[in-house]
């Protein structure tokens, strides 16, 4: 009986001892503001590229990926480029064989470019020109035949 009580007392002591030891470790949280780059990838239908695989290449090393990751369900991916490597960072997004590459200048002016630089109106006009060229070809050869 006495042995049992002793065992319980030792157990309690030990467990308190362990838990106080765990509480004794304070947590130190520091913060630092950084410039992050958010990529948002969507198909030209406007549908986000959810789950697309992202590969980030640092400037000067296009062979080895600097970071790989996956887009969230809104087609977004955020990463913090290493500011000690200024230049053009290449970000490649790929999903089921679809994808593209975007060039992000880091260090100098932070501006992104990529995708189709045309407005819908321009696209329609361009398509109309091509179609007219093809219809014109058809009319020309149809006339020759007659």
């Amino acid at each position: 009986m006495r042995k049992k009580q002793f065992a319980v007392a030792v157990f309690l002591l030990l467990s308190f001892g362990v838990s106080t030891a765990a509480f004794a470790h304070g947590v130190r949280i520091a913060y630092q503001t950084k410039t992050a780059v958010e990529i948002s990838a969507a198909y030209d239908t406007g549908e986000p590229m959810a789950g697309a695989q992202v590969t980030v290449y640092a400037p000067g090393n296009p062979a080895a990926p600097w970071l790989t990751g996956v887009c969230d369900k809104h087609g977004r991916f955020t990463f913090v480029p290493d500011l000690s490597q200024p230049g053009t960072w290449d970000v490649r997004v790929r999903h089921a064989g679809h994808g593209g590459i975007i060039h992000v200048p880091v260090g100098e002016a932070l501006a992104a470019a990529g995708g189709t630089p045309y407005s819908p109106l321009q696209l329609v006009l361009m398509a109309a020109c091509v179609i007219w060229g093809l219809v014109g070809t058809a009319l020309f050869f149809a006339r020759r035949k007659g």
Partner: protein
Amino acid sequence: MHIPDGILPASVCLGGYATAGAAAWYSLRKIGQKENPREGIPKASLLTAAFFVASWIHIPVPPTSVHLVLSGLLGAVLGYYAFPAVLIGLFFQAVMFQHGGLTTLGVNATVMGVPALLCYHLFRLRRLFGSDSRLGTGICGFLAGAAGIGLSALAAMVILVTTIPAHLDAAAERASIYALTLAHVPLMVVEGVFTALVAVFLLRVKPVLIEGECREAPARRVRGTE
């Protein structure tokens, strides 16, 4: 199905150009053997325009969306003109809308143009039903339209799965490629029905447009064996 720039390794792009070049040369030679090679140009030119805009027509198939291709229709109606038509259509899509790409033009033309040529031969099987049978034309039109998409999707899948870069999560990318390929099954039905409707319509309104290919076929074959 339009593989953009930067996805495939350079060797595959070069191989694509080689096969597309060979197919274009073969098609042009076959066209040149016709009595009047210019005869088919108006038809081919109009269908190139249709092919060019068809990729804007998107059909949502959850979780993704696919677009019309019309390669089966081009093959069925144009015969050997289909390959140059696909090549020109893809070129304009790549240059104007960045849909596909210039480095992958050869691969894309092979993936979509070669099935179109196969569809032409599939569509010619309607002779078995008699060349003015609407039922036969409809069935063969459906098969040609569906096979065009199916073969293209399979070819694109094989090319993509075998060239996944090492740094990607291969399993995830492979799964998404398989999902996209499966999404083309409903599109096969859509294109099959569309091709059958167009073929039956042409048979009723202007049968010369599709019969021409039927009538010339035996003559060409004889010339080829000589």
